[in-house]
């Protein structure tokens, strides 16, 4: 259990993200709807030049298929560029440490990982990637995958909006999200992080003689610029293998709180934009109450057990409380960065992490969190809405058998993408390639492998295995899972949104979705349909560890 001060800190952090989110939302709405803002004079000429350069007509509108294809093409093309950079970094500039190119399977895994906003890392950046790679492969994909998340959300919302005729223009959405939201926010955050002690240089690692005279390398680099987008874009892939446990990524408790805040900032902001974008302000409520209500449950689960003290896998400056808090938030926002080793977190904390990754909407990844919550809203409205005695509607549109079919297919993605490869990893003995794995107790071993694929499917990216999973099996399997876990739901939900265009809307919805009553039913239905479904596996993993009396997952 946590004490009063710690509870207060949790409340203060959540309150500040909620307040900032609500304050930032009107601006984000203006950006997403093309309403004039003060930045126009500065950015309009630049953006027009971009559209001319890339040969896209910003006035053209897209249906769901065009939008989806543009999303997938662009993302795949960007992954291809990053792949070439990672494989060829040995001959590329800004490589003072002279790191060789990555193996093709690791490079493939890495670009899919960053291109899908997952950021699972089967390498340690400080010993594998050049400055050039960290910037032009990693930071680049962190920006574009985050922007893609916002784009697909706004496209889906356009489809749901009564009276809409199209999903918008992907290229315009993408450019505007980058230039007007992500880049400015990250620039500010990066400079604040530098001021608080996060390095930002391309001058190469610094070699010093320690006080006692030994030789030490200070692994400095363009860290702050990466950490800002990694957190703001809910990416989570760190500059260092130890992620934000590494002091250069997260030197003090102050930066720790700031980084936690940044993970929640845009997902929360986008929730606040929903009502405005959909044209019914109150419809923000179920999304907000649903997300933060479930987040509160996640936190309760994690903090119910004993919190680890400063010990194995826990950094002294953060202690067990901030490590557990980070773990909950990083999975709830499907960011995946870490300020401790997962092995140091107690089993209930890991259970909570699983919950965050299975739901993906508490508040979930940038953009996609709202998408997933909308998916839950649709299925909940359908199942419980019938009990009002009318064919259920959401935003006035009747939920048809086809809608239900689409959502059910999206529901199937997770069980398949998580369980099939987990089973394959054990059945093919691929796990034996992980050093020391065979000596682990079943609960710990199972927790770690299941986590690997849950994290991949949820595009979270945190993991137990890290560079130990740099084997062809895990590189390939997780890459496939990440790709499927990202783009199949996006495709299905865009199809759902597309089918809402031009659909007849009823004048008054029978089941009001904008009230507290529905929001609580929504929470219950998500727990029932999503979390409970995975109960057998959570029992075999973290719950078993808990009942076996384990306090952490260290060997």
């Amino acid at each position, binding site marked *: 259990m946590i004490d009063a001060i710690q509870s207060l800190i949790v409340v203060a952090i959540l309150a500040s993200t909620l307040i900032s989110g609500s304050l930032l939302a009107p601006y984000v709405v203006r950006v997403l709807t093309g309403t004039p803002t003060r930045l126009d004079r500065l950015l309009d000429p630049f953006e027009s030049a971009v559209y001319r350069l890339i040969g896209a007509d910003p006035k053209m509108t897209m249906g769901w298929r065009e939008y989806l294809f543009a999303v997938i093409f662009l993302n795949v093309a960007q992954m291809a560029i990053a792949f070439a950079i990672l494989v060829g970094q040995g001959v590329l500039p800004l490589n003072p440490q002279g790191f060789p190119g990555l193996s093709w399977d690791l490079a493939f895994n890495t670009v899919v990982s960053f291109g899908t906003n997952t950021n699972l890392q089967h390498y340690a950046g400080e010993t594998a990637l050049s400055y050039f790679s960290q910037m032009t492969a990693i930071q680049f994909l962190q920006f574009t995958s985050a922007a893609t998340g916002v784009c697909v959300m706004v496209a889906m919302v356009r489809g749901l909006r009564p009276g809409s005729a199209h999903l918008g223009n992907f290229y315009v959405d993408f450019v505007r999200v980058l230039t007007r939201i992500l880049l400015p926010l990250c620039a500010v955050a990066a400079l604040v992080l530098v001021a608080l002690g996060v390095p930002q240089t391309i001058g190469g690692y610094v070699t010093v003689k320690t006080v006692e005279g030994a030789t030490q390398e200070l692994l400095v680099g363009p860290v702050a610029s990466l950490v800002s987008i990694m957190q703001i874009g809910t990416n989570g892939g760190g500059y260092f293998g130890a992620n934000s446990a590494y002091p250069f990524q997260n030197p003090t408790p102050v930066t720790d709180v700031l980084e936690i805040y940044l993970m929640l900032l845009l997902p929360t902001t986008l929730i606040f934009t929903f009502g405005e974008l959909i044209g019914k302000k109150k419809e923000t409520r179920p999304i907000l109450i649903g997300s933060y209500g479930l987040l509160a449950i996640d936190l309760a689960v994690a903090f119910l057990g004993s919190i680890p003290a400063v010990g194995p896998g826990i950094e002294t400056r953060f202690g067990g409380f901030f490590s557990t808090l980070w773990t909950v938030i990083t999975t709830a926002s499907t960011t995946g960065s870490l300020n401790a080793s997962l092995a140091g977190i107690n089993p209930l904390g890991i259970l909570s992490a699983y919950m965050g990754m299975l739901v993906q909407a508490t508040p979930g990844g940038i953009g996609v969190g709202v998408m997933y919550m909308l998916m839950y809203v649709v*299925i909940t409205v*359908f*199942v*419980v*809405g*019938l*009990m*009002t*005695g*009318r*064919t259920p509607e959401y935003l006035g549109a*009747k*939920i*048809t*058998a086809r*809608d*239900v*079919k689409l*959502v*059910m*297919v999206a*529901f*199937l993605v997770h*069980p398949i993408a998580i*369980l*099939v490869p*987990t*089973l394959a990893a*054990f*059945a093919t003995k691929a796990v034996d390639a992980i050093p020391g794995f065979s000596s682990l107790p*079943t*609960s710990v071993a*199972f927790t770690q492998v299941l986590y690997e694929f849950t994290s991949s499917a949820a595009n979270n990216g945190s993991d137990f295995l890290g560079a130990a999973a740099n084997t062809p099996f895990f590189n390939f399997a997780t890459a496939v899972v990440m790709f499927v876990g990202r783009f199949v739901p996006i495709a299905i939900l865009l199809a759902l949104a597309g089918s809402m265009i031009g659909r*007849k*809307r*009823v*004048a*008054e919805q*029978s*089941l*009001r979705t904008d*009230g507290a*009553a529905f929001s609580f*039913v929504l929470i*219950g239905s998500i727990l*029932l*349909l999503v979390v*409970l*479904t*995975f*109960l*057998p*596996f959570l*029992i*075999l993993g973290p*719950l*078993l560890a808990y*009942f*076996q*009396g384990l306090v952490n997952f260290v060997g």
Partner: protein
Amino acid sequence: MARHVPGLDRVLGRARVSRRPSALTAKTLTESVVRLSPASLLSNPVMLIVELAFFVVAAMAAFPSAFAPFASPSDRGFYVEVAAVLIVTVWFSTLSDSLAEQQAKNTASALKQLETEVPAKKVVTEGWEREVVRTLSTTLQKGDLVLLEKGDVVPVDAEVLEGIAMVDESLVTGESAPVRKAPGDSLIGGSKVASDTMTARVAVNPGESYLDQMVRLVESSKRPKTPNEVAITMVIFGLSAVFTIIVASILGLSVALGLRVDLSVLIALYVCLLPTTIGALLPAIGLSGISRLYERKVVAKSGKAIETAGDTDAILLDKTGTITVGNRQAVELIPLGARTVKEVGEAAFLSSWFDDTPEGRSVIRLAHEKGFVPRELNALSLSEVYDFSAQTRTSGVKLHFGSSFVLPKGSVQRVRRKFFLEGPGEQGMHLSGEETEIVKGAPDSFLRSGFTVPKGFQELVDAVASEGDTPMAVAKDHEVVGLVRLKDVLKPGTREKIEAVKAMGIRPVMITGDQPLTARSIASEVGIDEFVAQVKPEDKYGVVLKEQSHNHIVAMIGDGTNDAPALAAADVGLAMNSGTEAAKEAANMVDLESNPAKIIDVVLLGKQLLMTRGAVTAFSISNDVAKYFAILPVMFATAFPALRSLNILGLGLQTAVLSALIFNAIVIPLLIPLAMRGVTFKPSSTMSLFLRNVLVYGVGGVVVPFVGIKLIDVLLGVL
């Protein structure tokens, strides 16, 4: 403060057709066993899976060693028990199907009996010869002529060809007063001729009546799934697929990690997690919804129509017949200018003498009661009758005193007159001392036609109208002498129904030919806020389209050919069985009792159907929580004794699985009554209905199985 709203049963009234004989018969039982064959389960995949699971467990019981390491011979007894519960689960499902179908067939055939074989007098014409052949109703073909004499039962639906007679439709419609039928009117099979004789032409072939259509709709094999059923089936499919993956993964992990999970326990978990409850009851719920309509003598042409009725959020209510009983009653005579009440009464009497409508008769009755029987009565036999014309909206009579021509005794020459169109005095119709013309009708038509109108006429007309009554003006020799106050008689129970409809968020809109003042007063008397006044039947189509353009889902009733376009356009069109064929063709439901107020019942029954489906679905899904907690600790207990702390119910390790499985099975027959009767609800706002149902069926669905499984486990422990 919420106003008291009566419960659904009170609003709907008692079902008119009872469900006898009981649906649970030897035949139903046999039928339910026959349906256990896998081939007939193809339409219900969840149950098919359960049956396949039964075969696997049965095989485990027979050859346990073949299933090693997932089964052990020492557990044979357990496998037999699990197999037994599994097949009983499937049987409960087929039983609910058979019961619901039998119930629907019973109600359908109870209605069908109304037109079962009755004697008929078929008219056979040969040249000039006409011969009456005695035969049976079942032999009659469309187009045949039948003779109907006093006391005869109308053998099948028919249309009057010659003659006028009074017909008692009370057996079919429940309306006690005999109805006057003239050439062109429809006759309903099963009604009885109360007076006079007529010839009618048979309107349908055998097997083509709505009742026949209705019987076909309840044959489950032929009944197509409704859109909502398809959507729920998607949920069932999706959840089944999710649980299939999960259970298959547990099986795989059991091998890979050496968890030693028993296959029968895993199968039990699988079956418990599958949405078997809703899977088993879904067909029964739909069929029972149709049955409930039949019990109220409403025939739906499709299951979809019933669902759409539940979706309705605007009901167009014809004032006449729905809100008020069909006829207005004369209640007061009001003289104008220097005229006396007696003069008004006598004039009204004369003008109504040839008016056979209930309104006309009530005028005669009022005048007679007050003693205003005119002296000119004997002159009526020598008069010219002006029938009611929709254009002039008047009717009346011209009396001839000592006229030169004599009409055949007992007959009246009816003159289709154009008087008001062409103005008085034309066509040589000048008024002389020997003639008196008395006309009654809508007040405004007199103004337009240049009649002499006394001072204060308009004020009086408005005063009567604003009190919700209809003013009828009476004129004598082109001078308005007074008004007759016609009062609408509200149908008993209308107010309550309107209240219920409004409570559920449905907008009742009253449609009437009355002028706005009258309409407003009546509407407010029954609690209706919106009305459309001065509507002609052909305007209804426009009203429907207008409502739909405001995104409303519209229900309406109609009976005339004029109503057909509107009935077809409306989302729910309920035609009166007494109406024309065109109206019945266009509508998607027909009320055999021809009671327009039934539209409200239809909407409420549609809601009940959807609500029942939602409730059972929510209940079924919520049940999984307890089942997980019953089975999982036991399933992994061999490999991980530490997991026994998850056995929060404290179930016996030997009995937990069986308890969960038995609960899963037994909940089906326990819910059959709910499925067949429908969720009871009190008409109230959708959100309070929602909350109540979520609490009862959602939260209840989580809690009840914990209690039920524990109880069964205790019982099994005792045994």
